[in-house]
């Protein structure tokens, strides 16, 4: 199981991770950290 997990990780997760890091598209990246709001939905004040 550990072997399977390691293989999956190296072939699938590392490339995705590098791609996201390069494009800075991840919630973990710097672009999100600089965005004006971090709320999951638009911050809408007023009667709903």
């Amino acid at each position: 199981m550990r072997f399977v997990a390691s293989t999956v990780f190296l072939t699938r997760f590392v490339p995705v991770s590098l791609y996201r890091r390069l494009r800075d598209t991840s919630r973990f990246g710097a672009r999100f950290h600089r965005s004006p709001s971090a709320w999951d939905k638009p911050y809408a004040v007023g009667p709903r």
Partner: protein
Amino acid sequence: MSVYTLGVSAYYHDSAAALVRDGVVVAAAQQERFSRIRHDHGFPGDAIAYCLDHAGISLDELNAVVYYEDPELKYDRVLSSFAGAGPRGLRPFASVLPEWWAWKRDVLARVDAELLALGRGTAPRATASQHHRSHAASAFFPSPYENAAVLTVDGVGEWQTTTIWHGRGTSLELVNSLSYPHSVGMLYSAFTYYCGFKVDSGEYKLMGLAPYGEPKYADLIRRELVHLRPDGSFTLNMRYFAFHQGSRMVGRAFEKLFGAPVRDPESELEQRHCDLAASVQAVTEEIVLGLARAAVELTGERRLVMAGGVALNCVANGVLTRSGIVDEVWIQPAAGDAGCALGAALDHSVAVHGRPHLAAGGDGMSGALLGPGFSDEEVERFLTAGGYVFHTYTEDKLYDEVASHLADGAVVGWFQGRMEFGPRALGARSIIGDPRDRDMQKRMNLKIKFRESFRPFAPAVLAEDAQDYFGLTGDSPYMLVVAEVADRIKSEAALRAGGPGRGLGSINEARSELPAITHVDLSARVQTLTERDNAPFTRLLRAFKAATGCPVLVNTSFNVRGEPIVRTPEDAYRCFMRTGMDVLVLGSHVLHKDDQPPFAEAGDWRDEIPLD
């Protein structure tokens, strides 16, 4: 016929079960109290069995079983987290994922199987709620408010780390949320880890350390680690953190930023650790205030209810109650993940049965006294079988008897009625003493709790006298709000200094008339008491006030450091004999240490109980 719903939280941290009958919580308990393993995260089989026994039902009579979170959503987050981790995530991935594939993704089947294995009939198949919905339900549905803004803040649930809901009657609607990895709980735990304490349990210690420090690093945290927005939202700068990679909480960049590696748990605490604690505490308070402001703005409600691990930060809660952002605050006493069991069950039941407690006024938590209780006859059987020496008192004599021992300086183990649900002892499984006694804090820490002498104790005060002693803005029945002691009882020296004395050197000065419960920054974590919430403890306080003029007692949990709070008379007796307690009260029975037969144990219990 009554309709029963069982809520279960398990397999992560502090497993628990809760039983709701027709919209009313009738029983709830944490598994750790039965297994005697602190924060036990196994299946809460004993806690469930207790809930069933309490109601006198079998699993067949349950209408629903609700698990507190959604395993598929959580799996999704775990995968994404690793996709953000980079090559460093390999090892943790290889050790964590097989467990997910083996059973965690299908955790509901596991719950079904474990329930069946209890041999108490067949339960309906378990369904899943969502983590923060369970927290939110635990905060809103039992609250005393018809409508309220709901704020939940913790480390992480499935994806969400912070949520705002609008609670109206029996409806609970998600308004907005923040998601992983951006989390106040993780931020606080990162500093807990960095200061050498255990994550998920050492956070209290960090909070206790904060008043000894100056928030010297708060600006650095705001500049580098956390980006706070005017709309209350925030992000963590993941350059500095490593919790998403699976093995450590903080990365090398974090250590470099603060100029030292993670503190070795065995090494001395230094002033800078106090300063770090004060700094992350200050930033946490700022974040919580921002979130509360957002909750009010987004819902238009002036009453706020809270749950989630961060809602146990009673210093931040105190700041919030005094901020004027909200008119009233109610906090679920089991704000951590144990409380999710209760929230999940209530959420299911309230939809059909409403919130019956609202008609009676007050909250629906029964003073948090939802655990097992023991009758005087049961206690007597236990004491007689063991050959222990005890005296039995009628109710009117008992309180005066115990009060007089307290006034004479005795430390008393106080075991009454049903056990508390949640992390705090609220006067059902408590160790109590005279707060006016200058040596009480040191004695209780060193001889009874066997822990660091800096750790403060909490006061229990009669609600009607609370304002005379503490700067509280409302009630604090669950000991979740910190307030300053009133000027009236501050010592001359404290008043002259005009502010709190800081630094680790100032631990043992008398700062007020009640030195045992006055923290170094002249604050106290207050529990206010009423007959409605806890009649025996309130009557004891009345008797103590009649004997001494003081309506306040020191109230600390009935356990030693590292051990779960006691549940049974046997647990209580063992703890009594192992420690420097003078008197033990079990229901109507009073035991004196000096009268007891010699207490011999095989081995040293201090080897059995791990340090916390």
